[in-house]
């Protein structure tokens, strides 16, 4: 199966994982995973959220220890009790939430934990010289005296990589390194990866972006439900990869599309959301043309930083210091959507991507959470009405099949998929006309995804308009009737649902994909 080294099979892999098992409480995250890595290869590790990618990565980098199974480096069994032991063994990890100290400058970050000290005093000149030298290896111009939180995301990524490489590691693990990068930054990153590979470094490249795999990987291993679903060549067909990832053909996962559209519920023409203060890392909408009809599911595509979340939040009037300009019509009437109260009054509801942070009162019961946004309806004369609450809860449990069927347990005790159903249900019980969703299936398993898709389609069929932002391209293509592409706060393209992924990706990254392949 190995395509990277069919002719000269190396004697021994640099890293071997044998039958590794890891459980959290009752849930098995890894159920006996095998994985091998050879020097000088880029081995892509793919998998849906919840497939076990991060667990495996955390075991390799010493953050977690395996319950069962073996890790071998150069054929010798090892066990890491903390991240430093993994680093000492030559495994460097670049985490997705970059492990940098934002308030320190680039030099201080590069030398954190390994400061150069002379007579008890930090030798800043020597460290600056060292930092310059290390950055020179990678051809990117970064001011070493700049605080890290004043750098672009791409530059932070570079600093994190350079920091990870300082111990001259033999294995580098990259966790979703392109998730926050612009197209040209992705190119620079791939150059860095190829440079490392040329030096004989072995790289585990974790991603859920199938489209970048052919450009960077030598070998692909797909994880599903805590097991290796298969190994394949990087140029395998997308449909084959998807089948490995999802475990069944795509068309079973997604409901059929809508056939008849109602009146336009949301209409944006040359709409821009002007923030009163500029914020770094915030991409306001600056030219959006978009219509969502009743009965329609519209997808918002775009890389991270393209302004997807920002657009949804601005539509929901989420207390942002700013105002809409241009045409903004809800149900045919112009509106400014200046506050959450107004947005709700107009029939909008917003389902956040951060269910634990923004969506749910995690320690409160499922029932309390379900009525949270419609308290006025269940509290006649300012008094809580258990009967009305029970009625709403019962409806939500039945409609969304939330399990277990018990409104009194803390919502934090539910599985991710059921928590996501609660977040969704909590908005739907308010009977909105237009549902805004940000990453509605983040971090939940495939089965729960399918249920969420089915519910969204039912809601649309009942006359709701649905606007879904997602970073998962297959989801947008499979679920939506129409896909709108955002780039730097502007709508740049519109596609019908079911279109091929390459066309959407080209619009998303503003790049000819063919340019890479050819």
């Amino acid at each position, binding site marked *: 199966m190995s395509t990277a080294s069919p002719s000269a099979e190396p004697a021994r892999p640099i890293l071997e994982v044998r039958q590794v098992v890891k459980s959290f409480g009752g849930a098995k995250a890894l159920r006996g995973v095998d994985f091998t890595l050879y020097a000088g290869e880029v081995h892509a590790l793919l998998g849906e959220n919840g497939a076990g990618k991060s667990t495996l990565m955390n075991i390799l980098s010493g953050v977690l220890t395996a319950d069962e199974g073996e890790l071998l480096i150069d054929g010798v069994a090892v066990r890491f009790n903390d991240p430093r032991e993994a680093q000492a063994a030559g495994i460097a990890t670049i985490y997705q939430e970059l492990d940098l100290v934002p308030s320190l400058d680039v030099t201080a970050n590069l030398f954190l*934990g390994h400061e150069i000290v002379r007579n008890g005093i930090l030798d800043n000149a020597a460290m600056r010289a060292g930092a310059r030298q290390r950055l020179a290896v990678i051809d990117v111009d970064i001011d070493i005296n700049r605080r890290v939180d004043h750098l672009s995301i791409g530059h932070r990524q570079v600093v994190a990589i350079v920091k990870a490489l300082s111990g001259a590691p033999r294995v580098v693990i990259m966790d979703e390194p392109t998730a926050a990068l612009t197209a040209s930054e992705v190119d620079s990153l791939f150059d860095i990866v190829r440079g490392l590979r040329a030096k004989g470094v072995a790289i585990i490249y974790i991603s859920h972006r199938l489209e970048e795999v052919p450009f960077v990987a030598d070998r692909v291993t797909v994880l599903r439900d805590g097991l290796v679903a298969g190994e394949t060549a990087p140029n395998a067909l997308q449909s084959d990869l998807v089948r490995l990832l999802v475990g069944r053909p795509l068309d079973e996962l997604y409901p059929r599309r809508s056939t008849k559209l109602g009146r336009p519920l949301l209409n944006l023409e040359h709409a821009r959301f002007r923030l009163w203060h500029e914020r770094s890392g915030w991409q306001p909408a600056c030219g959006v043309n978009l219509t969502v009809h009743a009965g329609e599911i519209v997808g918002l595509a775009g890389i991270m930083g393209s302004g997807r979340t920002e657009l949804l939040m601005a539509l929901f009037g989420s207390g942002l210091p700013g105002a809409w300009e241009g045409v903004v019509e809800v149900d045919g009437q112009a509106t400014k959507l200046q506050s959450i109260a107004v947005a709700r009054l107009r029939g909008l509801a917003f389902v956040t991507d951060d269910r634990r942070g923004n969506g749910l009162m995690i320690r409160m019961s499922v029932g309390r959470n379900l009525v949270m946004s419609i308290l006025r309806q269940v509290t006649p004369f300012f008094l809580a009405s258990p009967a009305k609450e029970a009625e709403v809860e019962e409806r939500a449990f039945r409609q969304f099949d939330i399990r277990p069927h018990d409104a009194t347990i803390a919502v934090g005790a539910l599985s991710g998929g059921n928590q996501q159903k609660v977040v969704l249900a909590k908005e739907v019980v308010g009977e909105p006309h237009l549902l805004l969703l940000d990453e509605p299936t983040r971090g939940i398993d495939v089965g729960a995804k399918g249920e969420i898709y089915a519910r969204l389609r039912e809601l649309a069929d009942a006359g709701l308009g649905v606007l879904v932002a997602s970073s998962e391209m297959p989801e947008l293509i499979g679920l939506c009737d129409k896909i709108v592409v955002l780039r730097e706060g502007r709508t740049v393209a519109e596609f019908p649902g079911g279109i091929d992924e390459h066309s959407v990706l080209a619009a998303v990254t503003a790049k000819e994909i063919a340019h890479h392949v050819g």
Partner: protein
Amino acid sequence: MSDSTPQLATPASVGKRPQRVDLLAVAVRFQSLIGLALVSVGGIVFSPVRHGQILFLAPDNIANIIRAISETGIIAVGMTFVIITAGIDLSVGALLSLSSVLTATMMVSVGWGLLPTLLTVTLVGAAFGAAQGLISTRFQLEPFIVTLAGLQVARGLALVVSGNQYINISYGDGPGLAPPIFAILGERLFNNTVPVATLVFVAFAVIGTIVLNTTRFGRYVFAVGGNERAARLSGVPVSLIKISVYAITGFASATAGIVHAGQFNFGSANDGTGYELTAIAAVVIGGTSLFGGAGSMIGTVAGAVMLGALANLLQLNNINAALQLLATGAIIVLAAVLQSLVRRHEGGSR
């Protein structure tokens, strides 16, 4: 911004904005110094004048200001370390009181010499702080709660040891008398100009500045407050650093307690109330973020001096204590708002 040049070249994408941000950031960076300058100018302009002399600038008055702030200043130096790690220490005022009681008791009732007393009291202070740090890291408790409990414990111990009595310190040779040299803490040196208490504060500030800015320990303090996880993964001994900063505030509070005993010639279980808030105020006005990861010792010193100068100016003009509190409150809010503005412009790190 055009579509054709994506983000990698930072100068182009950031180029327009920083001008204003930098001004604001600079203003915040030096807010305590600017505030100090403003208060000083205000002091000169609004100072009562007697016999043609501006009272605010009279050598005696200046000596008064810097003497009055020395105790909270010493504590604020320690507090700066704690707050940069995103922690807080509420026990400092009570610990000062306990230390003043211990100092007086040891020298007067127990009859210990100067050095053993000073060593013991400062060690007890450091150990008290370290214990709070240990409890907070070991059991993953908020320092707010742990040091709030520490405040009660220290105050309780002080009451027990002193029997809720002032323990007066008399000087001389013999049993029940403190070594006369100890009284120097209440005096002034250099032609009767510079209070000794202030010199202790200056020594703390200088050493604190050096430790914070030029040593590995200082760098780790910033790292722990800036991103604890990153610090841990980089091999920084996070728990040890946290325990150490509470040991430092404990040591500083004990020293302030000794200075207190020396200045007033007694130990009392009821002194030092509210000192923790004054010290925290000095640190925050000095530009150190309560969210951790950023701050400056020089700012803290300027913040402490500014608060003292302001209180002095209001006293000189016979403005009542209630208005002094109002003015201090307004300044703290102003300092915090300025920081929040900068943070919002910079985005990200909360």
